């Protein structure tokens, strides 16, 4: 499937949850399949921390660059683009095409940098609703996402109850735990204490806080994998014949983390990383209801599919069961899968017959 990225520009200011105002913004997006005449077959796919609007297919000039959820989305795939009109979008504050810290601040003519406001999951959903309006979609057949993308799928059902028929919530949590926030704070500290960070205004200095980004990514990677998956993949295998009794790379896992960190620091923006981790930390739809998630979901009208993975210790199955309980308390139509997969949080990206079979069956039952 050959695809092409597109951009939608919005000149009406977007008031953010923080009180700040984004005077204008762009959203990068891609679409797959055809919108039907009734405009009833649109599915919005929301991405997690480091992904983008490039969900499926490949670009004509980059045949190797497959979308991050290409195993899930495409012709004949569980989310079948022969039947559904699928939209991948890049949230605002990101660094892959939508307006973010690397974009030009219209007030100064320079990159926003540290002045780009902190955005939240609610803000992303509000911006995505503008995109839906632009594309002529009144109501989505489904909004779907994993991890941070799942928070957007949840929030859609809360921000725009009438505009979502199905909310598909994978490897999710209704709020970060103190431990989750702690990992995010270590990542932010790694970035902000990098001498090349310059308080977030590093673009015009010709440097990138690469060391901080590397460490942030290494920390993230540890939380995406289960202990068992990491042991299975790397074990205690040495990169050299005998231990070096120095601080160069001994173990395979060290090499892997350094490689992932290096790669990430060449393409990801540090200001974006800070903002995304803050969006994760702040997300808590129950907060305004005294912590009662059931009350928060009282406004939801969508049907829900919730999926968790037993080895995911970042957003554990217990967190997904909290969502299920809140939905049951509100008598929502909901199904819940607890997949016994070994990979940890990253399992939501892996092809698994049970997981993909369930998604295929679920989408198959969505009437168009």
């Amino acid at each position, binding site marked *: 499937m050959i695809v092409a990225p597109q951009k939608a520009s919005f000149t009406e200011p977007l008031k953010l949850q923080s009180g700040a105002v984004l005077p204008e913004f762009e959203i990068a997006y891609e679409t797959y399949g055809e919108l039907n005449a009734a405009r009833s077959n649109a599915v919005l796919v929301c991405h997690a921390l480091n992904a983008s609007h490039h969900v499926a297919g490949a670009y004509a000039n980059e045949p190797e660059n497959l979308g991050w959820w290409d195993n899930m989305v495409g012709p004949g795939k569980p989310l079948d683009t022969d039947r559904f009109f699928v939209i991948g979008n890049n949230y605002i504050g990101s660094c892959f095409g939508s307006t973010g810290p690397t974009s030009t601040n219209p007030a100064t003519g320079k990159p926003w940098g540290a002045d780009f406001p902190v955005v939240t999951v609610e803000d992303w959903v509000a911006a995505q609703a503008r995109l839906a309006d632009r594309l002529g979609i009144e109501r989505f057949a489904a909004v779907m996402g994993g991890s941070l993308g799942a928070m957007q799928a949840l929030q859609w059902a809360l921000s725009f109850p009438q505009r979502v028929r199905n909310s598909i919530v994978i490897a999710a949590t209704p709020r970060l735990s103190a431990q989750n926030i702690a990992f995010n704070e270590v990542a932010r500290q790694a970035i902000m204490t990098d001498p090349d960070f310059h308080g977030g205004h590093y673009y015009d200095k010709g440097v990138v806080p690469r060391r901080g980004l590397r460490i942030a990514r290494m920390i993230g990677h540890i939380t995406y994998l289960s202990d068992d998956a990491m042991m299975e993949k790397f074990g205690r295998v040495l990169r050299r014949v005998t231990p070096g009794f120095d601080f160069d790379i001994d173990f395979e896992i060290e090499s892997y983390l350094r490689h992932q960190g290096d790669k990430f620091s060449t393409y990801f923006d540090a200001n974006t990383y800070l903002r995304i981790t803050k969006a994760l930390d702040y997300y808590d739809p129950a907060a305004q209801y005294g912590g009662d998630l059931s009350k928060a979901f009282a406004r939801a009208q969508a049907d829900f599919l919730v999926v968790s993975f037993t080895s995911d210790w970042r957003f554990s199955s217990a967190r997904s069961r909290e969502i299920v309980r809140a939905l049951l308390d509100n008598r929502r139509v*909901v*199904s819940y899968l607890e*997949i016994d997969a070994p990979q940890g949080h990253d399992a939501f990206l892996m092809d698994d017959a049970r997981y993909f079979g369930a998604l295929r*069956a679920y989408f198959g*039952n969505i009437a168009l």
Partner: protein
Amino acid sequence: MTDAETIARWVAPGSRVLDLGCGDGVLLKHLWQTRQAPGYGVEIDDANVVACIRNDVNVLQMDLEDGLAAFADRSFDYVILSETLQTIHRQEPLMQEMLRVGREAIVSFPNFGYWRARIQIALAGHMPVSKELPYQWYDTPNVHHCTLVDFEALCAKLDFKVLERLVLTDGSAVTTLPNLLGSLAVYRVSA
């Protein structure tokens, strides 16, 4: 008549049902189609969970042995345990949970007091194998068998009222000597 048909007859139209150990969801689908009773199934087996979704039935993949913490008090009219009781390790807390969550419980199970079972143990000297109990002792998912007498004794101990009972053999109702002549029992109980 099957226990599923019996259960469908007992479920009042439009009531809310929770089916524990719901398999592929056919009972829930039947209850929705014939009684307009919306419901949820609880199932642990991966293939069954996917089958439920294919059958457009709400299913929650959970282990019944962990209790019913996902469900609020009195959130269902009926909590159904169809031919699953004998596979549970701890019946007593589950039965109490069923009547915390539901107004009534409907329970069906193979009667271990059925004469064919008794004969296989008493005369042939081996564990019963039959249509209702198609397993060998070493590969059965069943862990706690009971008879009508045993089940009613448990209900009495838990202070549960038996509202209705139907005993079946080969699809026909059994009224004479049910604990001896019935192979499958269906009960409707309340707290």
